[in-house]
């Protein structure tokens, strides 16, 4: 399963990064959101870290929709989904490959969002950057596990962008709230021990949706059109 998942992830990343397909739109949308939100503060004024963290994760959540629509759209152009289903690899390897590819792409986008949020929202990061990256990567895995699972639901449907948004956002709430609180803690330089419950929420979210995806994905990703 891992070999096939890596093949899917490698192929998706190659397609996404050659010509920056799927990335440019995501980065532009996120930057636009951060910039528009920054207009709500007075010049020279510093946004509260909680607001900055919320805007960062909002940009991430919208970016995630674009990323997974792009990743699942790759198979729809010439029907390659049927080929994946006929391969001897477990169907879950498609979920895992897309989740890993989405994780990498989303993280690349966030590497642009983060400095933009710091600059436009007037933040000074008091905590460790390494810890911040760890928090972002941990929350991202949950988002991508769920995004890759639900991305399969919207495959082949003309209204897939809106469908994915409608079903994904309500389920993302716990991970996003945890991400906001943890990132706010990192920005303000407090230790994560102050928000231990939110750390637990992220770990539980990642574990629950990884397990759920491994069980449910074969029922969602089928040859029916």
């Amino acid at each position: 399963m891992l070999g096939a998942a890596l093949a899917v992830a490698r192929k998706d990343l190659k397609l996404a990064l050659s010509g920056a397909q799927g990335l440019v739109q995501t980065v532009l949308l996120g930057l636009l959101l951060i910039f528009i939100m920054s207009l709500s503060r007075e010049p020279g004024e510093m946004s509260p870290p909680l607001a900055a963290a919320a805007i960062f994760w909002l940009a991430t959540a919208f970016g995630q929709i674009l990323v997974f629509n792009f990743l699942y759209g790759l198979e729809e152009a010439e029907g390659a989904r049927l080929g994946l289903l006929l391969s001897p690899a477990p169907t879950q390897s498609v979920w895992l490959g897309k989740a890993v590819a989405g994780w990498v792409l989303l993280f690349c986008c966030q590497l642009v969002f983060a400095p933009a949020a710091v600059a436009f929202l007037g933040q000074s990061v008091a905590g460790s950057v390494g810890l911040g990256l760890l928090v972002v990567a941990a929350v991202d895995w949950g988002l991508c596990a769920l995004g890759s699972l639900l991305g399969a639901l919207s495959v082949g449907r003309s209204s897939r962008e809106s469908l994915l948004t409608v079903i994904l956002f309500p389920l993302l709430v716990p991970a996003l709230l945890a991400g906001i609180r943890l990132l706010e803690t990192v920005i303000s330089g407090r230790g994560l021990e102050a928000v231990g419950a939110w750390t637990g929420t992220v770990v539980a979210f990642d574990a629950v949706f990884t397990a759920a995806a491994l069980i449910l994905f074969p029922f969602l990703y089928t040859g029916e059109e």
Partner: protein
Amino acid sequence: MAQGLLRLCRVSRFYGERAVLRNIELVLAPGQALLVVGPNGAGKSTLLRLLAGLLPPSEGEITTELAPGEIGYLGHKTLIYPKLTARANLAFWQAMFGLPRDDAPIEAVLARVGLSRFADEEAGVFSRGMSQRLSLARVFLTGPRLLLLDEPASGLDPASAAMLRREIRAAADAGAAVAWVSHNVAADLAVCDRVVLLRGCRVAYDGPARDFDPSGLAGECVC
């Protein structure tokens, strides 16, 4: 009923209320080339998708002795990635089918379908016929025991279509079961062993190719 690689027992398939196939009985035997014919809407493509396991039957049972990955399927779409080169497409499918990373089989199938010169070009710039040939290369690469080809000659020039018929016959002679849908019945009758005619959602003929009368093909599809 004879043993086979795959058997359909009283299989029906509905899309909503509409029946596409009713009570289909079919056995696919190794080494047999089966031509599936019938008017538009008779359920030929649905039959192939049922055989491939891509659609579940609404009624009836499908049993198979094939392991996962032993079916090669070519549908109306080419199942290729337009932004990858022909070689990268095949390397991807090689990895997905758990085959060792090796350029030699890729070169061999590209040569077999006449695409060696275009191996490093993006598949998206290929003509319909070249895309179809790349798709055939994908099918041949994995060495399936059952080949299911839905109008494989679509978009192919006469020479490529003749090559395709030779490959179908060679695959059957090598022990694979081959089932393919075609509207060019006159040409394909020469290479098949058996014909199944679908009409009105049912099997109207299932027998040796030599006994099949193609002149009776014109008909309506009314379920």
